[in-house]
């Protein structure tokens, strides 16, 4: 079944592509088989992350960006992520609303994904879904994160270029995005730049970047700030140019190699820790392990020592 789906996907069949994404999302065994089979055909697409606080206009901006990229005749993939409710497991995925005019364009493939318990702003299977779209033939893959606060920075482990979208009037807005988010942006966007306060936001961002001069000078890339009004297309072409400039920088500076290494490392680490967690969880019911847990409850052994013993017993790892 999987071989057939992959073959159909490589011929450009959208239903097969969509089903492969479902499988990598739902079924770990199948994900493994699919990824191992398509992996040699991946690594070609440019991956661009769009992140920022809720309501900043990420989906609308993306809608307009797709339009510009399509003028260059590139095949576009979009993965748009919205949160899963931790209480019901349900999700309402609404990013597509803003991009629906592209849904009948054969050169655009849009997929909504729910976070399904992942907390870093992405869906659990985002990286695998990207690989499917990459093998399908997308030249550019946009990943729109959930609306983020300060710490959902997983996108940096996934995208080549991270675009951080903010808007004027978030209060002391630069403070609000300072901690983690500021550091991962390759391109800043001030969307809704026709609103009052856009100049102040620009000034603050610029100042912030000046203060971090040392960091970006070492990297060789000062993140540009692009002002946009997504609803009227203002600044969208400039934004795409800024993204392309960054892609060029990545290539010429060799930074892309470093990024890919980092990404592969993070991905392997995540898979390994997932496997270890499952190996241990599967043994939590066993006599020996439950005795240890009981021991901790009774204060006969401390949790650190119990964990060491469990690791030693399950994986043969000495602390």
């Amino acid at each position, binding site marked *: 079944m999987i071989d057939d789906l992959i073959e159909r996907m490589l011929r450009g069949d959208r239903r097969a592509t969509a089903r492969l994404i479902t499988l990598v999302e739902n079924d770990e065994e199948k994900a493994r088989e699919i990824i191992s089979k398509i992996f040699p055909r991946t690594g070609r697409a440019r991956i661009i992350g769009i992140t920022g606080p809720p309501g900043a206009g990420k989906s609308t901006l993306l809608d307009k960006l797709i339009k510009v990229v399509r003028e260059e005749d590139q095949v576009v993939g979009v993965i748009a992520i919205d949160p899963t409710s931790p209480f*019901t497991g*349900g999700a309402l995925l609404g990013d597509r609303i803003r991009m629906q005019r592209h849904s009948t364009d054969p050169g655009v493939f849009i997929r909504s994904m729910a976070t399904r318990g992942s907390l870093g702003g992405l869906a659990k299977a985002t990286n695998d879904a990207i690989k499917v779209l990459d093998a399908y033939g997308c030249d550019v893959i946009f990943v729109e994160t959930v609306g983020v606060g300060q710490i959902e920075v997983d996108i940096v482990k996934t995208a080549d270029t991270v675009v951080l979208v903010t808007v004027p009037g978030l209060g002391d807005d630069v403070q609000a995005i300072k901690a983690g988010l500021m550091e991962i942006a390759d391109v800043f966007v001030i969307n809704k730049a026709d609103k009052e306060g856009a100049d102040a936001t620009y000034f603050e961002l610029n100042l912030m970047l000046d203060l971090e001069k040392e960091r970006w000078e070492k990297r060789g890339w000062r993140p540009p700030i692009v002002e946009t009004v997504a609803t009227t297309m203002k600044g969208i072409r400039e934004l795409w140019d800024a993204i392309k400039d960054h892609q060029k920088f990545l290539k010429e500076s060799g930074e892309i190699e470093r990024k890919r290494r980092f990404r592969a490392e993070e991905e392997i680490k995540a898979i390994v820790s997932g496997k270890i967690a499952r190996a241990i969880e599967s043994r939590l019911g066993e006599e020996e392990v439950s005795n240890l847990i009981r021991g901790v409850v009774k204060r006969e052994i401390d949790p650190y020592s119990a964990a060491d013993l469990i690791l030693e017993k399950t994986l043969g790892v000495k602390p």
Partner: protein
Amino acid sequence: MVERSKVRVLVAKPGLDGHDRGAKVVARALRDAGFEVIYTGIRQTPEQIVESVIQEDVDVLGISILSGAHMVLIPKILHLLEEKGLKPNDDILVIAGGIIPPDDAQELEKIGVGRVFGPGSPISEIIAFIDENVHKLKKFRPA
């Protein structure tokens, strides 16, 4: 029963009427019941809806129509689905809601709509219908 969080539902509003309160209430209620719901907004063409169904690989398509054009738009959607190889009740469950008179509802259920839910239908009926029928789809049948 198929785990609800792995059941994907597209709520679509075809045609020209812009009254989407009902569609939004249903979308939210299905989310709260634990389904993954994709909402695509108002004024969608049948082509846009069917393409979204394909790209999102959904299991249930819920169509909301209040304009009176249901006997044109719903058959058109069903036709496009079949053209793309999606057989109603086999590859996808299609349900409909809105202002649809009983005679029309009967007709639509004959040509592939799983169930038409009229005004005042409790959400629990929609949820029960999905729970009872989604596992019959090819995708969820054991290979």
